């Protein structure tokens, strides 16, 4: 690895950390200006049965009797050391709440991402190589996918596969088959922008002269696609994949609700209705970290995938001439 790349990677990683911190501060400020007083609303809710002593301890822990800026610094300091605090609703550590919900959501999101990529590649391949009329139909799939709301797809899949075909039962939403259908629900709208980017860049690449020359060398269409076109077409898609991770995080809230899954979505929903500030703060920050990390990976990968991105390389032609 060259020194240039290391410098580039370190700069990008530094920028990513700054973005995460800013996201944390921003979330904190947004939550703190929300109407409603966390202390009276939540802590003094007789339903929680907290003693005056407990309340005092929590107030002191979060600095709730102090100015917002002090609360922010306290909270930020703990965040940096990995300490996420306690839920105001259940008194459980936030890390435990999030930790319990995370695997389910991660499974769902990762499966959905894979399915979305498979869908997108299949659509793009079809758009490129199916005969005229069929290609036109395939090309219209992304806009169709994009215009059908996620919950409609979910409900149709449940109606058809759970109630009619009995492929899975809604009472066990975490079974592999149920997870698969939840992931398909989540993947369909997310695959649309990815497919569009892929179709556009495949169109572009297949018109390049090198594709023609490779064909003149006797490559079959399938080999041309796999060997020559996929990689350069994937370059813009890598950035797109990083962006759709954001949509996966957002979409999982709805999908989890429809399929009755426990996950980050459910946690968020409860935290919002219950004004559970530490939980909300943790989940939003976690999403920011995931989003930024995925984009960082995409950024770092692009010079490795595309040799032209590397900067300031001594060109061979300067050394040996024409």
């Amino acid at each position, binding site marked *: 690895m060259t020194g240039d790349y290391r410098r580039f990677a370190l700069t990008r990683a530094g920028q990513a950390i700054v973005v995460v911190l800013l996201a944390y501060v921003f979330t904190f400020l947004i939550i703190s200006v929300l109407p409603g007083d966390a202390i009276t609303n939540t802590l003094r809710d007789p339903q929680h049965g907290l003693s005056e002593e407990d309340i005092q301890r929590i107030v002191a822990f979060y600095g709730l009797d102090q100015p917002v800026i002090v609360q922010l610094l306290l909270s930020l300091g703990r965040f940096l050391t990995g300490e996420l605090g306690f839920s105001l609703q259940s008194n459980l550590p936030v890390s435990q709440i999030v930790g319990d919900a995370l695997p389910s959501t991660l499974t769902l999101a990762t499966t959905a991402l894979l399915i979305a990529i498979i869908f997108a590649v299949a659509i793009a391949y079809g758009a490129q190589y199916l005969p005229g009329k069929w290609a036109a139909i395939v090309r219209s799939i992304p806009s169709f996918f994009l215009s059908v709301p996620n919950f409609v797809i979910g409900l149709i899949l449940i109606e058809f596969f759970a109630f009619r075909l009995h492929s899975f039962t809604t009472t066990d939403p975490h079974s592999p088959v149920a997870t698969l259908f939840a992931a398909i629900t989540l993947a369909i709208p997310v695959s649309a922008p990815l497919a569009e980017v892929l179709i556009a860049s495949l169109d572009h690449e297949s018109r390049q002269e*090198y594709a023609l*020359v490779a064909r003149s060398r006797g490559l079959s269409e399938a080999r041309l696609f796999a060997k020559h076109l996929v990689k350069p077409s994937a370059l813009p898609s890598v950035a797109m994949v990083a962006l759709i991770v954001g949509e996966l995080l957002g979409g999982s809230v709805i999908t989890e609700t429809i399929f009755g899954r426990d996950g980050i979505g459910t946690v968020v929903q409860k935290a919002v209705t219950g004004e559970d500030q530490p939980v909300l703060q943790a989940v939003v920050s976690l999403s920011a970290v995931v989003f930024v990390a995925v984009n960082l990976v995409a950024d770092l990968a692009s010079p490795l995938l595309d040799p032209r991105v590397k900067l300031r390389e001594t060109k061979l032609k300067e050394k040996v001439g024409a």
Partner: protein
Amino acid sequence: MSADLLTVEGLSIAYGPTVVVHDVSFSLAQGESLALIGESGSGKSTIAKAILRLLPHGEATATGRVALNGRDVLGLPEKQFRPLRGRELGFIPQDPASALNPVRTIGAQAHEAAALLGETDPAVRRARILDVLEQVGLPDPVRVYDSYPHQLSGGMLQRVLIALTVLPRPSLIVADEPTSALDVTVQKLILDMLTELRQELDISLLLITHDLAIAAERADSLVVLKDGAVQESGSSRDIFTAPQTDYARSLQADVPALHPDRYRAQRTVFAAEPTHDVVFRPAAVASRSTGLQIDVQGVTKRFSAGGKDVLACDGVSFAVERGRTHALVGESGSGKTTAVRLLLGLEQPDSGRISVAGQSTSGRSRAEVRDIRRHLQLVYQNPFTSLDPTWRVGRIVREPLDQFGVGTKPERARRVEEALASVGLPTDVASRRPAHLSGGQRQRVAIARALVVRPDVVVLDEPTSALDVSVQAGILELLSKLQRELGLTYLFVSHDLALVRQVADTVSVLRKGQVVEAGAVEDIFSRPQHTYTRALLDSIPLATPAAALGGIAAEAKQPAKATA
């Protein structure tokens, strides 16, 4: 004559309802070479693509017969045609820079060609690839093998492409303008190498080109195309020495190398006395003579790129008298573009002195430089990119007048009209946009834009390199006429020595930022002193018309010897 390797009979090609190739027939014998020649839009590349079956699916339809070794390949299903690709039928594309996959190494792509030999052992394949890379004259095959296309120069890439094409030993190579994107000296090396390989490996060549000189030099027979139809066909020698059709005659007349004095008569009217020996003044002697319109003295410019210093101009000096044409000749990277930018005041020299029409341009404020620029106008290389596509021609030509605040509105309109008339364009062009004009018309608009402020000096930066030969002749004729009528001084920047001989009085040959040779055009052409100048002269196809006309048959029969 051996049996025909390639036979094309009644080939017609249509894009939808538009027929672009009409009933074209020709044949090519084993081991022979044939050139399809014509201007852009003549259908030559379309025919090549039809033979290679690389026309876009569903968009183009080809009818007629294309037989390779007696077997009709036009109607063959792709599955049966594919084994012929590469093995029987090789393809060398026009622009080497875009003909290789930018994100895969040369080696990875070369393996595809090597695989056509049926060799399955990657180590053997690799050895074969390195051999062929060496064979095409690449100095460090291993390094090239591991390189990505963007790490190699255009000339090296074209060598790579030729290597990959000859590797599977096809019987026919279709080369589509294989050198038009390259520098002239590189162009000659590549063509020599291709000719030699062809001889060695007994490969037939179908050469697509717009350059009659190259076609005549490199091919046994010619097919002249215009608007998708064959105008004339026969042996190179016959067509070249005695063209039968008007079109072939005009193509022949437009080859700069064959008619070095074509524009001389019109040009020298202005300076009645032929004073060639004193026209060019060596920079050291050049004085503040009122006759000097451009005076560049010992100009040096250094750029630093990627921590490395590049001396783009190293003590460059030249001077041009009023009403004369001076040419700056050199290949890419020779510093000619930097010299022009310095002259135009777009860059400031590190040292040295530049004056235009007696006024020094260096060390002046922006406003003053702007004022000087009124006397100094530029015609750019590519008229397809130098005109704002959203503006109408009238506004494009008027822009310099608006810029310098010349005259009243009706006066400006009148001057725009005059300028358009002087470049031979009808008045109604003013209301059109560049997209509706041909390349030649666009370049005329660019010339009108330069002339509208009535400059003394016009810098012509490769003004015809983006144009067809016949269009080029029209533009050069116009420039000569304008020079005579308006007493313009030209600085003509070009890489094409044949062209320079036609239009320039004096010439400076640039190499790596230095003037290696300078003098009157006649002297440079008849007695070149520097080896680089000789190399440039050698690279002109058919540099000596006598040899071309008399000895072409001999040359065509023994190209390997002629170019060894």
